[in-house]
């Protein structure tokens, strides 16, 4: 009887999960396997892939060729990694006060304050980056405002070009991914029982030690979840650097995109994506092992 029931359960479960698994296997797992296979291939003069087994693409990425060592691609990889770390750190620094502010706000204001963080997120990625061009360029809004403000106090101001530049890329990345850090951090900050703060105060802790010994440890899961939500997309994004960085600002995402569209070397592009994937997975796994996956925030 029980075995039969379980059988029925199993059949139902399989039936319900089948469409999802068709999509997951067909459009995620098989494509990933194809990328791995392609990365060991070669290109023919027409830009098609010849499926062989060669490590040529990976050797080229490492910068080793007949002409000697060229760190071009290694620099792109480390540059992307560095930018992803910078972005994540800055997004935590900027987002934490706001997440805390919203979590401590009176219940009635909280939803509105959260809603206000979400609205920019819904205005389209590409459009948001475009907006920064208007702010950052030499004749842009920031320069005009600075010029006007300094003019008021009688200081001569020469506008400076902030676009395109690597700084502009960093600002764009922070802007794009800030909400993804604030929301999970808010979720875990909001869960902290206010009585804990009172207890800390009663036991003689000052504001600073309360923060470091109560607030920070208890909000760590949100920070971990936010880091995963920010770090991975930053590593793979190519639009921000494409639009705000000009032609010289090349991240691993740009490298991959160009191999598929301009350079027509999918095999080399695939090898670069495998390296990108390995790097993000390595960082994620290290992070998850060290701090937990932030599960309570990502998967409620």
């Amino acid at each position, binding site marked *: 009887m029980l075995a039969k029931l379980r059988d029925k359960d199993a059949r*139902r479960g399989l039936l319900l999960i089948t469409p999802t698994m068709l999509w997951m296997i067909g459009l995620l797992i098989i494509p990933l396997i194809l990328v791995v296979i392609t990365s060991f291939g070669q290109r023919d003069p027409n830009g098609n892939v010849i499926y062989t087994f060669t490590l040529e693409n990976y050797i080229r990425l490492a910068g080793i060729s007949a002409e000697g060592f060229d760190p071009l691609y290694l620099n792109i990889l480390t540059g992307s990694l560095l930018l992803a770390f910078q972005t994540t750190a800055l997004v935590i620094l900027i987002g934490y006060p706001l997440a805390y502010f919203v979590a401590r706000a009176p219940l009635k204001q909280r939803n509105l304050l959260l809603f206000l963080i979400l*609205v920019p997120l819904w205005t389209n990625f*590409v459009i948001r980056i*475009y907006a920064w061009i208007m702010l950052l360029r030499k004749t842009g809004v920031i320069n005009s405002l600075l010029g006007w403000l300094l003019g008021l106090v009688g200081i001569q101001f020469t506008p400076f070009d902030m676009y395109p530049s690597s700084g502009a890329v960093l600002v764009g990345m922070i802007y794009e991914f800030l*909400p993804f850090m604030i929301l999970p951090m808010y979720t875990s900050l909001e869960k902290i029982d206010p009585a804990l703060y009172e207890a800390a105060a009663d036991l003689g802790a000052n504001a600073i030690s309360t923060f470091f010994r109560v607030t920070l440890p208890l909000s760590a899961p949100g920070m971990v979840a936010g880091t995963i939500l920010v770090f991975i997309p930053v590593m793979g994004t190519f639009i921000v650097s494409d639009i705000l960085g000009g032609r010289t600002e090349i991240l691993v995402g740009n490298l991959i995109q160009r191999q598929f569209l301009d350079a027509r070397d999918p095999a080399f592009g695939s090898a670069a994506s495998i390296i990108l994937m390995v790097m993000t997975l390595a960082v994620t796994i290290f992070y998850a092992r060290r701090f937990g996956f932030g599960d309570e925030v990502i*998967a409620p």
Partner: protein
Amino acid sequence: MSTRRSPWLTFVSIGVYIFLYAPILVLILFSFNASRTNVTFEGVITQFGPNPPANTSLVTQSACGPFHWFCVLFNNREVVAAARNTLTIALISTICSTIIGTMAALALQRYSFPFKGFSELSLYIPIVIPEIVMGIGILVLFSAVFRFLNGALGLDGDQRLGLGLWTVIISHIAFSVPFVTLVVRARLHGFDKAVEEAAMDLGANEWITFWRVTLPIITPGVLSGGLLAFTLSLDDFVITFFTNGPGSTTLPIYVYGLLRRIITPEVNALSTVWILLVLVVLMISQYLQSREAT
């Protein structure tokens, strides 16, 4: 004590809100710009009158007055086509991924079946793998499939199958399903199975129980999952970039294309319309949620 807010915290928070909104406000302001090149803000177009010749740098008058760029936008066939594509893709992929994802959530939350662990693990793939890797993977897959099909069916020239609206829709479903499943599972998590058992005891069969008890209870979860899928699809750039073909350009792809040419305030007008639409949708969903809560 717990609600006491230090002034510097308020100050910093206001600063962050300004940081979040400054670009959007500038974007909207510039959509009324009189300057055709859109490099600096030259004031709003104030005069109504016949449209200016296309070679002047300043637009001093327009048949639409301050809304000159909006009129230009709505008369632009490429934009209208891109908007139609964007909505078609978002609607179809949302409906499919909501149904499929809800089914998966029910399966994972309710039943034990072979390969359950593997299924759960595979749903995490889009979260932990950079979108660009998924994008090129799907591109490699589609090109292989199309090369095979075109060869097998002997298709040539214009008949050849290739990337288009359907490839984008199929790919959008792929990245939306895991998010729908996540949201619906959260709703199912707090579900009291006794309610269903009660319905069965009262003589309802399983279908009736599902339609009249289970579904109404999980509907809010299904709706918010669907809303999430819809916005993910509307906003998507990377996957669409690699899977769209001739005739399936979406708005984000169109804007990206414009950014590499000359940018007129038309792009801003487009952004402004987009922002207003999103706000309206958000308000409606908030209103529905608040009505449900009471």
